[in-house]
Structures are given as C-alpha cells and as structure tokens.
C-alpha cells in the first residue's frame, strides 16, 4: 500500500499543534525541509526532541513553533551556539522555553525504551553529575542481583511524530540508510507516527536486493516523501556534502532576531516548498556539494530456490 505523499500533505496530516516532534539524525540526514514546512504551516506549542537541536531547531524555535525542548547537546556543531534557543533560555525572549535535558546516552536510551515498550532503561551514567538534580526523571535504581550495583534509569520517549531522512525507500516506506545511523531507527520505532523523507523513491526490488541495509521498515511508517536535498545544510552520505559554510553563516544570522526573521522570510515563508528552496540556491551550489564516487562493492545473498 503506497504511503507516498508530498511534504505539505505529510506535515498537514501528521504533525499537530502541541505534538512532541522528533526530527532525528546525528549531524547526518537532518531533515531541514520538514522543519521548514512545519514553520510554514504555522504549527505551535510543539515539544521538540532531538539529541542535538542543531541549526534546524534554532530555526524552528526562532520561528516560534515550540514551547519545550528535550535534548542532550545544544550547539551549532563545530561552530558555537544556537542563538535563538539561547535567547529563549537566557533572556526568556520572546518568551520562556521549557527544557528537559539528558546526556547523549540518556537520550538514545529513552528512544530505545520507547521503541521497546519498556517502562525504563538502565544506564551507568549520571554518577556524581548534577544532571539528575535538575532532571527528576533521571532516577537511581539498584540491581536486584548480588552485585547490588546502583545505576540510573531514564524513562521512555515516545514522540507523537518522528521525522527521519533516508537515502532511499520504497513506496511502502521501507527505508535504507548508509553512513552515520545516529538514533533514527530507535526514534522511528518509538513514535506514534513516522514520516520518512528520502532522496530517492525506489522500487521495492532495490530494497529487497539488500535487506540488511533496511534501517526502518514500512510497518512503522505513515508517509514517504521524496524530497531531494531535503537535508541541506546537513548532508546525505554519497549524495551531497554538509554545507559547512552555511553552518558558519548561521551564527551571524541567528545572533540578531531581526536578521533571523529576515532569513526565515526569505528562505521559508516566501517559498512555497523545498523545491523552491533548491531552485533558489541554484544548480551551481548543489554541484559544489556533490562528492566524488566511493562505491560500496556488492555482496551475494545467494538464490535458494
């Protein structure tokens, strides 16, 4: 059963005001196009979850879609700060932002617990750290075995919607990813609704030729959106490079609420879709981000008939 939709349709159908939304992808495969569409459709009061809020959540929070942030590392990777988020937290400008923070491993394990229908997940972290003191959802428990070791547990995180990007998927939503995997699988399985955005929609036979490459099965997917370059300025391994220049440029854009607002107007509100965004950047820009070839080689599954 085909789940193919446009980004506009997928966001309109599946992302609702007040939802907990996770757009996951650790540096790699961050679906900026979905964030832009959520901004364009004017969603409000979202709780945004991500290990690394990254520039995408700085844009979304700058645009006013969120009331709360769940995260583990709040920065512009390799550059510095997320200024829009910092203004909300430090100056409560233009209003306060609830924060709930973990370490990376804690966030990952929250998704694992959510994906696994577990009431909690144990980890050996947070010892002698102040993090549990400011987040009462991180609690110690004691091993029932002879060791009696104390560990901490984190609660499941079950987003209302998880949005992930993959290099390719079939029309049923069976998605394959290579390169960095982050926690997309766990975040997708943990969610009530899942949108998979891909560089390329492919025939089911392409997926079935290499079933070990499938990271997210269609069974958990509600909508599949084909949207090339949807991760820019993040990247899709083998398709285009990270636009580090944009990450650096964002620092100046976001420092001033006015330039941020101007950027949103020009690059989100004034555009009808991600296709317009791709066109506005221009073919030369995309050509400059194209990597050389590095083929994986292939393996043989064997035909057993």
């Amino acid at each position: 059963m085909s789940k193919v939709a446009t980004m506009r349709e997928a966001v309109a159908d599946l992302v609702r005001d007040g939802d907990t939304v996770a757009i996951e992808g650790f540096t790699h495969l961050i679906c900026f196009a979905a964030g832009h569409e959520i901004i364009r459709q004017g969603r409000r009061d979202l709780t945004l979850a991500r290990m690394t809020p990254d520039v995408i959540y700085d844009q979304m929070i700058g645009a006013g879609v969120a009331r709360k942030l769940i995260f583990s590392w709040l920065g512009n990777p390799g550059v510095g700060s997320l200024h829009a988020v910092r203004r909300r937290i430090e100056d409560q400008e233009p209003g306060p932002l609830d924060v709930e923070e973990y370490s990376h491993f804690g966030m990952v394990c929250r998704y694992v617990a959510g994906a696994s229908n577990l009431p909690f997940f144990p980890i050996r972290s947070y010892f002698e750290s102040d993090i549990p003191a400011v987040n009462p959802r991180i609690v110690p428990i004691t091993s029932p075995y002879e060791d009696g070791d104390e560990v901490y547990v984190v609660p499941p995180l079950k987003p209302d919607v998880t949005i992930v990007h993959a290099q390719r998927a079939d029309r049923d939503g069976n998605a394959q990813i290579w390169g960095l995997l982050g926690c997309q699988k766990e975040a997708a399985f943990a969610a009530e609704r899942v949108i998979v955005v891909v560089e390329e929609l492919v025939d089911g036979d392409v997926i079935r030729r290499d079933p070990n490459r499938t990271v997210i099965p269609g069974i958990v997917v509600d909508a599949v959106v084909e949207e090339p370059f949807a991760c820019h300025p993040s990247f899709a391994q083998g398709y285009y490079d990270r636009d580090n220049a944009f990450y650096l440029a964002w620092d100046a854009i976001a420092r001033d609420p006015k330039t941020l607002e101007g950027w949103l107007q020009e690059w989100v509100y004034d555009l009808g879709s991600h296709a317009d965004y791709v066109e506005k950047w221009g073919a030369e820009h995309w050509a400059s981000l194209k990597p050389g070839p590095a083929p994986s080689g292939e393996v043989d599954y064997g035909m057993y008939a």
Partner: protein
Amino acid sequence: MSGYTKNELMIAASARLLTGVENCFVGVGLPNIVCNLAQRTVAPELQLVYESGVFGARPRRLPLSIGDPTLATGSTAITSMFELFAFYLQAGLIDVAFLGGAQIDRFGNLNTTVIGDYGRPKVRLPGSGGACEIAIHARQILVIMRQAERSFVEELHFRTSPGHSGDPEHDRARGWSGSGPTNVVTDLATYGFDEETGEMTLRTVHPGVALDDVRANMGWEPRVSPDVTETPRPTDEELRLLREELDPQGMYTK
C-alpha cells in the same frame, strides 16, 4: 622553524600523551589535530572513534564536525549510537577520550552546562552531549582547555561530568570503566592528577611562562609537582606535519 604558536605547543604536548594508545574518542577542533599528529608520530596503531558512531575513521580532510561525511567513507565500522555508547564506551573499550569545558575544578570535574543559575542561566552552554558517560567510562580522560581564573574554578556552577571525587576511599566506584582525568593541557602548563587524592598537579610549565602566571590564572592554589619542569617544545618534525600535512590553512594551529 624555532617559532611556534601556543596552539602548536598544546597540540604537540597533547599528542605525546597518546603514546602507544590503541583507540581514542575524538572530538572536533584541537583533539582531532592531536589524534592525527599522534597517529603520525607516537601512536601509529591509533584508531579514531567518534561518538557519532564511526570506528577507525580515515578522514581525508579536516572535519568541521564529528559527523562530517569524510569520517564515514572508508572507516572500519559504523554503528548505531546506542551500540557505540553501550557496547564500546560503557563496556570499557575506549582507551582515551578528550574532554573540555567552560569550567574545571581541582579534581577534574567539568562544567559544560551553564554559567550562573541553572533555571535562569547567564550563559547557556551546550550541556553534556556524551561527556558525562565519557568521563565515567573512557579508560583515561585528557582535558585540553585554555587556562583562566574564570574557567579553572574553586567551585563549578554545575557539575556536568565527574572527575575525581576528592575522597580517595570512594573514588571511581565499581561499574565505572574509566580511571578519570589523567592529564590537563592548557595554553600555560600541563597537569597530572595525584594518584592518592585525585587532585590536579602542575607538572610542566610552557616555555616563557612564569609559575606566577600559572597561579594567577586559576581559582585555587595549585598543587605543584616536586619535579616540575618546562614543557618540551614542539619538534621540527611535529611542526612540519602540522603545517604541511594536517592543517595547512592553520585553522586550528594559529
């Protein structure tokens, strides 16, 4: 080549701490250059591990972030972040990791969370990322930081990642895979940690830096090793590798 920058000295001093190390959790910026230099000098078997899930990376360019695509292509293994944190880090397979922070105290505890009050911070810093569990489980923690009175503090505003407890009886409980911070490299000096008390101890002072400069740039009276010496200068070969091969644009070495 007798001239060198402060960063070049810090990089060279840090790289020598990796002598013979087999794998290292790498961050971006200085630690990345440090590991690359160590691979070419004192640790030819060194495998670069990134918390983004890459093992045995062979970057073909200087990565801006720990998720740069150049880290994935040609690496030995890519793993989910759950497996990286659970099977590699928590299980004690990571030999060395680099950490830094806005504040460090005399026991190597680190603050990367807030300056000021948590609920209404003066400066909201990035938070833990993987640092809290890295501090607990990497076998050995190396800290690279610029030294100043506001960052080397008597009391942290927030303890993000544990160092040593200051209580020799109860330091580093069972289930912690790591032995905590072993070295700190700053732009003024290098430090070890006392094996008994876990206290940061001045070991070497950089050429041209006075002991009083070191003291003036920290918030407590430092313990000083009885055999404190001058930090060795970068060798010509180290400088050549840095300038010609690893960072020809001087992004991190200037």
